């Protein structure tokens, strides 16, 4: 793969979705409330990776592999999706883990956020 910043890619991204999705917990606990402190354990959260114009593609792929354990092809497809669409869901699951993953991505300077699925 060419050593280009993530934002410099022009190749079309392969269709891919975040492959790691934790099963939803049984419905009922916490549903229908806006109180963040209840943690809403049955609502999965998505980790979004945002495109940025300076980070090397290889670097993004490597970080996705390291943080989430993805193989190279999956990590590359997710990186390309973030580039093409501006952001990509790179993981879904429990809120605390999603936040923790965001912080790990942030240690490499990558921009990410979490949001309810």
């Amino acid at each position, binding site marked *: 793969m060419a050593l280009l910043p993530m*934002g410099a890619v022009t190749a079309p991204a392969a269709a891919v979705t975040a492959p790691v999705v934790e099963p939803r917990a049984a419905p009922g606990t916490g549903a229908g409330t806006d109180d963040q402190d209840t943690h809403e354990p049955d609502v999965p959260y998505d980790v979004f990776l945002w495109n940025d114009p*300076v*980070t090397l593609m290889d670097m993004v792929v490597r*970080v996705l592999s390291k943080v989430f354990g993805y193989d190279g092809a999956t990590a590359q497809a997710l990186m390309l999706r973030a580039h093409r669409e501006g952001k990509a869901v790179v993981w879904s699951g429990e809120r605390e883990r999603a936040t923790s993953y965001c912080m790990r991505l942030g240690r490499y*300077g990558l*921009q990410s956020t979490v*949001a309810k699925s």
Partner: protein
Amino acid sequence: MRRRSRRTLARRTAAGIELALPDWVTELVRSSLDELRRDLVLPGGPVGRRLLAQLDESAPSDDPVVTLMRQHTLDETLDAIEPTIGRQLLTDDEAEGWLEVLGLVLTARMAQLGVRTEVDRWALNRSDEAYLQVVYALQVALMHALDGPPASR
């Protein structure tokens, strides 16, 4: 006649990851880290806003505990790497820490310059472009030293 040898910036040896950085590159890394540490003290500045931006899109504002944890995590990253600047031999963990810090300084520098889009990025002046290329070269060298060249991964 001798062929000019090309030294790589980082390579794996039996003892660990060996760095062969020109002094000015070492100083560039050191000064970038100092700059980043100063900028992170100002959470309302461009670097603070970029590196400590709100994580949870669902919440009206980030949990202050999460924000503190993020600041602490970044401080830890910088603290771990600072004593290794100037050394010629790194452990794998230290080299990984260098990759983290290089990503952070790159993001911080681009935030300072107001680079948010590809148009902004390609409009960088020669000096800022040169900075970018030096950081890229170091990142690539460290990735290759840690993981092997792309073909062998």
